[in-house]
């Protein structure tokens, strides 16, 4: 039942009335979001604090201590060149999380900008951009990434370029669709009537109302990027050795799967946990900042 009320005195009461549902939507009231944030927090903390947690150098080989089983000194044992698996796991997380978070930023920005332009202006700009999007989407994500990195040569720079080239399309599509809906709202007409420039209308009036969808998608996109980085590492196209990386750890360890299962299992488990945490955050965020909660 919609409230109808008169000016001045009703305002304070109204404001109070509306304060309640907002509080109910605080992040800690969302079990999924809270669990995701705590889990991701722990993982990121462990990765950042790696030098404090483990005394071992993840790169330095010690051939006399290769393929040790888990013990009090080496919690997860060592690999075939005698490097501590736990240390490599923490430093590997460090590498992969850093690359993933950076790699998601560029496509996010490019996709949001291009999607806004496409959705707001329409016309031939929209047609050209959306055909480009269709072409990129026609290829499977991982296949395209792997092919691009193969052409560009292994290394972090190639990973960034490949993920940006492929990843922006999803953001562009999401933002374009949201803008198409939002720009029909009268507040956009009102802003145009106020003589505001398109850049200001998109940036200040439209994006704050539609960006949440892209942020929610970014959470699942990071998961996808981490999997892509790990996959690249597994194929030897990722971060060049000896820099620790979860993908190359899994690859290196799979020769010893029957005798030293911990070499592949724990890096794999770490990937799963990161993915779980980000998915939980994405779901929780979707519940909270879904637009149109007026």
């Amino acid at each position, binding site marked *: *039942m*919609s*409230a*109808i*009320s*008169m000016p001045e005195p*009703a305002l304070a009461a109204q404001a109070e009335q509306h304060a*309640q549902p907002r509080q109910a939507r605080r992040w800690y009231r969302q079990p999924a979001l809270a669990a995701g944030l705590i889990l991701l927090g722990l993982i990121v903390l462990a990765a950042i604090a790696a030098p404090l947690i483990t005394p071992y150098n993840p790169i330095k080989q010690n051939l006399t201590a290769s393929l040790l089983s888990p013990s009090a000194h080496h919690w997860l044992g060592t690999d075939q060149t005698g490097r501590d698996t736990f240390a490599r796991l923490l430093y590997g997380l460090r590498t992969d999380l850093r690359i993933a978070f950076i790699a998601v930023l560029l496509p996010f920005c490019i996709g949001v900008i291009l999607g806004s332009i496409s959705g707001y202006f329409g016309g031939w700009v929209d047609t050209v951009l959306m055909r480009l999007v269709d072409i990129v989407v026609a290829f499977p994500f991982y296949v395209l990434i792997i092919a691009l990195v193969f052409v560009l040569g292994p290394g972090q720079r190639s990973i960034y370029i490949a993920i940006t080239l492929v990843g922006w399309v999803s953001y562009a599509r999401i933002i374009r669709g949201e803008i198409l809906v939002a720009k029909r709202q009268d507040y956009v007409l009102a802003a145009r009537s106020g003589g505001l420039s398109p850049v200001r209308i998109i940036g200040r009036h439209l994006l704050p109302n539609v960006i949440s969808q892209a942020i929610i998608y970014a959470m699942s996109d990071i998961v996808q990027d981490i999997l892509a980085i790990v996959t690249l590492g597994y194929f030897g196209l990722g971060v060049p050795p000896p820099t620790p990386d979860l993908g190359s750890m899994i690859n290196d360890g799979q020769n010893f799967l029957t005798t030293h299962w911990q070499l592949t299992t724990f890096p794999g488990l770490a990937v799963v946990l990161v993915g779980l945490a980000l998915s939980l955050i994405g779901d929780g965020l979707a519940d909270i900042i879904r637009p149109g909660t007026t």
Partner: protein
Amino acid sequence: MSGDWAGGAGGAGGRLLEVRDLHVQIPTRRGTVRAVDGVSLEVAGGEALGLVGESGSGKSMTLRAILGVLPSEAKVTAGQILLDGVDLVPLSSSDLNKIRGPKMSMIFQEPMSALNPVMRVGQQIAEGPRVHLGYSRARAAERALELMRRVGIPDPERRFRAYPHEFSGGMRQRVMIAIALSCDPEFILCDEPTTALDVTIQDQILRLLARLCAESGVSLIFVTHDLPVVAQLCQRVAVMYGGQLVETGDVRDVLLEPRHPYTLGLVRSAPDIEEVRESLVPIPGSPPSLVSPPSGCRFHPRCAFAEEDCTVLPTPLRELAGRPRARSTACLHYERCEDAAGAGRAVP
């Protein structure tokens, strides 16, 4: 809590539909919303009753409770809905289904969402007679064509096979009326059926409804926020405020000589095509909370005539003495409306 108001317009059918002390409540996080709080109504055969109020007054909830199509959270917590002496409230939905159609039907505000978009219009009209009256396919189709003619759909043979999206808004509402009429109901419940229509189309639909009422003796309960529409179509009117009835009576009596300050406010706040006034008189304040309504008269916080007793005494509908036809008001100081109305409408 409630006051009965006796006697409809005295149609030949006598009393047919009677709502007694109806309460509808909706539990929410912020407390129980008392959407309808002690409403009593009567509709006689062939009579058109207008149920008027603003959004949140409970008028639509009352209508939905009568037809048994309340939203799932809302419950009838007390009261009776008597159709020919049978209480509908305790009936199961399958029993209600036997009554909806042959006894009562409904016309909605937005016909496009009430019609099935992928079913031919003729079949939608023929569905009721087939299900409820056991008509054969051919006979039901014949009936549908006849109904389409009756509600003024041109070229019914061709339109029979059309889909709702091929119709204009006014024609869709005619289809809705044909569906509502298809099983020869005694009551048609109308929920703002002309609000979404243009004024010339609204005029067509109102005339159609008035003609159908006169021809077939069907009774209408017509829910709307638009007072002039009620004045054109209905004989009796009931004004709702905050889940309760505040005034009932003959439509011209009530609208020309309101005896409740809320009705007076509604009449004086709307611009009138016949008469240009220097400025309109809005009703101050905002509608009451239905979770914790004001004590006493629910209108007292917005009422210019309110006295001490208005804030404490319950305000059931009371019949006005010395009236040729049944006329009730919930106002304790209704005489004051008389003076105010006289002053406001003093036209040479």
